[in-house]
């Protein structure tokens, strides 16, 4: 072969490689930052670090890039609707059906750091960089439920996690937990927080809100540091866990009564135990099941996986998830989510706890990966109590 032909071939090869690289770059995506699963479990919407918004068909195992300019924290499926919500980098919020039909669009004055919308698409709630909470009505007017506070998101490197029940009566917010205060007068009540900063500016801890009344009804204390909390679909339970390994739950009818979740090896910490710190008698391990290796109590997120009955707790730097049943402190079962590809639960990525999403009605769990743009999807079986990985895109 002549020297000329060789050179041409080489050039062609290089061009092909470059073209493939460009094509790959165009179609691949950064790690998932936020995710949401449709109530029927058929779709997931994900927003990625490179601003792509992807709709995943979980039945047909297909994906479609909806936008390349999406707010990375804006992927959200509206409850009981085949409609997802997202925000563009131009701050326009769009409610869009899975078949592409735009059902609602409006412009916000700021990027959202977590949001949701009522099923009738009339009322929109969102958080901002300063962990404010705002309510936008159908007429476009906005009111502040919780005042924004500087750049709290950067401070904790975590979103103010928001969740709402199916009846759209209750909301839970969770930012940074407030461990038990000192004895009075040091302890901060809801009123004290309000006195410290207007419009509950400093309400970082887990809080239960009455959406209709547009104000918090209970400050749910006991967590520490970066805290995730979520509300059961029926609005009966709030479950929380945090960076310090504290897991708690409350019945929303008795928000003053805090219950502790069991750790995986030590059991339930007894708050009122008369013994000194470190005494084994401070722990009740009577209901513990045999632990699996790789369980970590430092928690990234929790998510309901079967209606309001079962939920999963995801540990930091762990590929294990613990199954809990509402109303009980004891773990029911441990699931190995798979070591490869590494999940978003690795690397203390509390700011990406929104990359873990479920449909409690369909028993579907979708999770992002640690450093690549893929997704892992799991199916929960409430009868067999199994969690099977049904689809992995690396």
């Amino acid at each position, binding site marked *: 072969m002549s020297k000329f032909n060789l050179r041409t071939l080489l050039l062609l090869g290089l061009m092909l490689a470059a073209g493939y690289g460009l094509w790959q770059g165009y179609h691949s995506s950064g790690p998932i930052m936020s995710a949401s699963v449709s109530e029927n479990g058929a779709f997931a919407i994900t927003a990625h670090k490179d601003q792509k918004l992807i709709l995943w068909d979980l039945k047909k195992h297909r994906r479609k890039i909806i936008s390349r300019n999406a707010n990375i924290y804006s992927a959200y499926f509206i409850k009981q609707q085949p409609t997802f919500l997202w925000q563009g980098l131009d701050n326009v919020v769009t409610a869009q059906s899975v078949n592409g039909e735009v059902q609602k669009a409006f412009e916000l004055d700021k990027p959202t750091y977590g949001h949701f919308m009522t099923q009738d698409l009339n009322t929109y709630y969102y958080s901002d960089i300063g962990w404010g909470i705002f309510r936008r009505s159908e007429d476009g007017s906005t009111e502040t439920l919780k005042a924004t506070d*500087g*750049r*709290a998101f*950067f*401070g*904790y*490197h975590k979103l103010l996690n928001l969740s709402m029940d199916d009846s759209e009566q209750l909301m839970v917010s969770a930012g*940074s937990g*407030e*461990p*038990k*205060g*000192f004895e009075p007068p*040091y302890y*901060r009540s809801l009123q004290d927080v309000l006195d*410290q900063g207007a419009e509950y500016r*400093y309400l*970082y801890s887990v809080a239960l809100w009455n959406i209709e009344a547009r104000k918090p009804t209970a400050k749910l204390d*006991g967590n*520490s*540091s*970066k805290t995730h909390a979520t509300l059961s679909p029926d609005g009966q339970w709030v479950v929380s866990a945090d*960076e*310090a*390994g*504290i897991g708690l739950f409350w019945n929303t009818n008795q928000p003053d009564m805090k219950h*502790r979740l069991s*750790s*995986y*090896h*030590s059991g339930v*910490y007894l*708050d009122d135990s008369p013994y000194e*710190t*470190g005494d*084994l008698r*401070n*722990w009740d391990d009577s209901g513990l099941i045999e*632990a699996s*290796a*790789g*369980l*970590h*109590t*430092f928690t990234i997120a929790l998510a309901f996986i079967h209606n309001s009955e079962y939920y999963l707790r995801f540990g930091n*730097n762990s590929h294990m998830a613990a199954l809990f049943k509402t109303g009980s402190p004891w773990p029911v079962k441990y699931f190995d989510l798979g070591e490869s590809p590494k999940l978003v639960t690795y690397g*203390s990525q509390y700011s990406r706890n929104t990359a873990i999403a479920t449909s409690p009605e369909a028993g579907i769990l979708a999770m992002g990966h640690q450093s690549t743009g893929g997704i892992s999807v799991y199916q929960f079986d409430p009868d067999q109590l199994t969690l099977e990985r049904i689809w992995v895109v690396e």
Partner: protein
Amino acid sequence: MTPASNLPFSPSSAPLGAHGAPICAHETANVRLQRSDNLRRPKAFINAGTIKDESGHVATVALQDGTEHTPDNAEAIFTQLVTGNARWHWPEEPEGEHLIGFDTVSEQRRFAPGHYLDEGVDLTVIQGERKARVIHLPPPVIISLREPAPASGDLLTDEQLDYFRENGNNALIYIHGYNVSHGEWGRFLNRQDSQKHYGGHGPGPRTAWHPNKATVWQDTEALSEFTASPLEDDDVNGTGAHSWAIHMEYQLNRAAGFDGKDWMPYSRIINISWPGDTGSTDFMQAELNAMTSGRRLAPLLLQLADAGIAINLISHSLGARVALTALNIVGTIGRSNLVDHLFLWQPAVADNALTNNNSRDVHPLGLGVFPSAHSAARKIVVLHSRGDGILGPENADDRAWWQKALHHIQPLAMTAWTLAKADAPMDEILGKLHGAYNKKWWCFPSFLDNGFGPAIEKLYKDYLPLTFEAGKTAHPQRSAYVPEAVKKTVQANWDRLEKDILAEADALWQPCIDCLRNGERPPDYTLLAPLNHRASVSLQIAKDYVFRLKKLAVNGWFPEQSPRPALGYVGFDEVANEEATAFDKFIFESLNDGKFIPANQSKWLFIHSGMKTPTQELFEEIYQREIMQNRLLANSKFGRY
């Protein structure tokens, strides 16, 4: 002269006299100055300075003899001043009591410290008497634990105690870290006499300073506008512990709401200066010094607590060992919840240092944990960062690199020596050693004085040799024939040392307990200095210590175990992991209880000493949010904020 005026002179603005007479009539009047601090408490004049009146006459004043802070002593009356414009110059005595306010009936003026020094304070002498209140900052508080001092020298004076009592009834104590010299205060720039460079024709460039010590933070960059070349921060904001004091106090005030202009709410903190500057890598000696200092700090905590003053503690780096020693001691004597919050900022102590269980200690001499420290604080906030290049990284790759280096000591030593000599901030030098903290027990290169050998041999210099290879302790592998005479000498030295150590333990056991119960400074252990973090050392503990020491000596002062990773780097990740071998139930429980609070700063703090001149992000998120807003202002107090 106003720009609109065409006159070649400036007309007098002085009021006319009682009968409409101009000032040439030399009508005279008095100026009565009342001195107070920013709590509006009377402060005695030591030197009331001078007033230069409109005629050019410079008046001084004869003061009362008393130095007590009574209203009479706090008053200075200047007489025979010509009415009209005048200037008051005050020499800032006592030192550090900067002028921040000048209030008359009609006007409240506020100054940044030092700003009036150039021109003095202008005032108008009115007929009859001009009354004014001159307001000063209280002096800074530095407790130096560097030199031997009587026990009272480690405590606050009655005056200082009163200040903290009246300034919100709380005190914040800051303890600096490793390798910080005592240093000195900064200075105030004399802007009038400083000159920029004006090309070839003007006066030569000159930087002039006022003789007064500056004990508060100043914006070096902004001041450099007045000088020919950029100013050094050390000149303006001091050096060593003084510089840390200035920076931390200012940032904490700012975080609490101080606007940088009105200094009236500005609160002084208590700064602890301790001898952690033992050379770039003599970490063990610095640890011993930290414990001796912590022992001296304990009575100060008791003094504040007994006065009913709320205490909050912030320590940086190895300052954590000073703080934890003091708390361990007061915790041992049953003074629980003495301190509201202990903030351990980038603590250079083991990640299990807060356990209550001595058996968890992996330190070969038993100084790694502080089993009673937890009980002396209501809450302990651990600010840690994986971005800290001094305290980490604790990863296998890094260790492997250093382990490989063991076989190539010479090239490594050369690199380390070059770094140590480099004209660069200490953080940078230590940072280049890829996590200096993790090498703190290493015994090479010996000329860098790291590891156990140098500090122990200094401590027991009267008992050497304690090994068969004195002077070559860094190389235990060089075994060779040891003459019988040397063996006998070593054995005799050990016998003598053991006897003296046990005697010291026996002699100080009860005095330590008695002193602490009375809130007095306990005696220091000398031979048992590595156990100075204990309130007292029983005979049994002393015997155990000797056993550990011998074991270490047999191994050429080389420990069998690696140190635990630094708490300031890993936080509680390992000790609170139920499946880890290092799992500590007590720490796990204290986290569950909300007593220990981790605050991960990995996203903002990338430099070990980054909090001294914080980025806006670090300032907002740690100073403002984590320390002030969420903790001190919510659950405790800081000054009068």
